């Protein structure tokens, strides 16, 4: 049945992986695209990247972390149950210049999920050269390491607490790699906005192009509301229909950080209500 969760797995602390049956989304999917789902009749519309698809089984994969009420409700849905509403695939296919030969992927935290769709596309399907930097708060938060290892052995891991890989941040590893490896001609970055901002600054310093995969607030996901808008090259762009992948140099991150915090007090309110239950 369409929208059915055919496989559910907890893959890290508070982090779940769902494989969902949806023939149309799978057959129309292009790497970089996302879906919007809704869990209950009173629920929000939540955008999530399509991590990968299995075309034969007509299933696609999402990975999410429980960060608030909506993702908590999502995590409670069991295998074989249905997700109320799923719309997709939305947004555009990730595109790179034809002459790009060596890509450095940088993913932080749950951002490794959207990054994986690009790693799979360019390293596995298109067979380009590349390496991957993965970062997490600690080893128990790190996701998709094994899946990425099956595609490339060039993995560099950092954790904030040093429980796995090198102690430190992905940005430290990025700086080191760009200084020592002169073949890299593109960076693709996904993770917390502050991390992406930092990666763009480092790439810029090294005069290397960088793509960022943005996760803004969204409602309809079809260009109607404008809630996901960003300032890009001094113009307004919609993440849902113009993105979600953008040229990192042109994104106004300062503003994006502020806009993403717009509903912070509401999220706190819901959390307080739930904590009091």
């Amino acid at each position, binding site marked *: 049945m369409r929208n059915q969760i055919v496989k559910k797995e907890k893959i890290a602390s508070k982090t779940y992986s769902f494989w969902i049956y949806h023939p149309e989304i799978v057959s129309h999917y292009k790497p970089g695209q996302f879906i919007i789902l809704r869990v209950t009749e009173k629920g929000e519309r939540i955008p999530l990247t399509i991590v990968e698809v299995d075309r034969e089984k007509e299933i696609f994969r999402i990975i999410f972390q429980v960060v608030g009420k909506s993702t908590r409700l999502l995590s409670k849905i069991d295998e074989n149950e249905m997700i109320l509403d799923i*719309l*997709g*695939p939305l947004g555009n296919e990730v595109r790179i210049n034809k002459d790009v030969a060596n890509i450095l992927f940088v993913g932080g935290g749950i951002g490794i999920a959207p990054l994986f769709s690009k790693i799979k596309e360019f390293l596995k399907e298109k067979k380009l050269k590349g390496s991957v930097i993965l970062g997490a708060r600690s080893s128990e938060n790190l996701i998709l390491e094994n899946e990425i290892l099956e595609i490339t052995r060039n993995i560099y891991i950092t954790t904030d607490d040093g429980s796995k890989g090198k102690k430190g941040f992905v940005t430290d590893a990025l700086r080191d790699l760009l200084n020592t490896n002169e073949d890299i001609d593109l960076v693709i970055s996904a993770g917390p906005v502050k991390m992406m901002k930092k990666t763009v600054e480092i790439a810029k310093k090294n005069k290397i192009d960088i793509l960022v995969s943005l996760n803004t607030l969204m*409602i*309809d996901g*079809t260009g109607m509301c404008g809630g996901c808008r960003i*300032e890009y090259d001094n113009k307004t762009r919609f993440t849902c229909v113009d993105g979600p992948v953008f040229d990192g140099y042109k994104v106004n991150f300062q503003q994006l950080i502020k*806009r993403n915090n717009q509903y912070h007090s*509401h999220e706190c309110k819901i959390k307080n209500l739930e904590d009091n239950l």
Partner: protein
Amino acid sequence: MAVNPKDRPSEERINDFDEVNLGYTDEEAVKEAQRCKECGVCIKGCPVRINIPAFISQIKKKNFKRALSIIEKDNILPGICGRVCPQENQCEARCIMDNPINIGALERFLADKKVPKDIGIYPSKNNKKIAIVGSGPAGLTSAFELKKSGFEVVVYEALHKLGGVLRYGIPNFRLPDEIIDEEIEQLKKMGVQFRTNFLIGKTLYLDELLDKFDGIVIATGAGLPRYLKIPGENSIGVFFANEFLTRINLMKAYKFPEYHTPIYKGKKVVVIGGGNVAIDAARVARRLKSEVMICYRRLEEDMPARNEEIQHAKEEGIEIKTLLNPKKIISKDDGKIKKVKFVKMKTVGKQQDGRNAVVETEEYIDIETDIFIEAIGQIPNKIIQQNSKGLEFDSWNSLKIDENMETTKNNVWAAGDVVSGAATVIKAMGEAKKAAEKIIKEIGG
């Protein structure tokens, strides 16, 4: 004397999202109907050509069921049209009476009677399948007409709920959700099939639909916001009306946290624009307990919004300031809006359409606000053409069609705002009916 339906008192209604207009009682409806001379000139003003004198005649005789069935021959959405059509510019504008008959209120009265309906099931007779893209007023109307003629009809909707702009755009205090649900239910009973969460151009492509169906009606509306493109537009607290209204109407953010989508609130709200969307946004903001001001660049008499709605807004304590045009949004360090810089406008004679022409003066004024909502119009969304070839749009994103409502692509018709830009519900319905008639003629009914 004309009998007008009563409104709920403004001080009561600004506390909730329930309907403002209470509608007629039986006695009031009959009394109003009795004023009608049944001359029939009004029919020419109705884009879907309802036999108005015939249904009014039945109201006079208290044959409410008969009256409603007369309307439903031409219009499956009487509860919606009775509420949101600008009758004052359509049927009622043609009325020979000094005080025109309240045709819209009578139509709504009948729809609300909830008399048992006998729409009937319409089996697919001709083995022809039509796909309709979009479940707004144009999509629903063409579905109705085509189903009646024996087609198999499937309606595709991108959102999780049906109704298009009726659902995400028009607030419940003008058009309650239950009315939309009930009228769509009639279509389901007739045998029209609906698929939500299908975005044509992404989930399925137009060319794929053409392989499966004998014809397609594109009724995707005007779903992209126009915006001012002024500095500071992405400050926190600046909304396009679509977002503000979608959060409230579709996602029910005014019931947060019971509903999980939040809405950003502020003490002061400034709305830009003069159409129905601007008035709707302002009246929603008022119900969220804000002080609300509408700023419009021409004069009040030039506002395209329905006069009734402008009056409702004023009764609810919304201030309307005219001859002001926003130039710049100034925000605080935390990214939140602080104030808006407006240039004062002045009138310089009349335009061709009879409205005042305006030009900028050298004078500026700053207005402080917590929320700024832009409601300056919508244009069609072109996602439908993605991954398919052959559709042509004009420079305003409107789909090009010929005199038969057919697009530049064979077997693909179009109707509603996707053709005419943001217009009215009834205009969309009139075009949808016309498109359906052409399809029936061309593909067979």
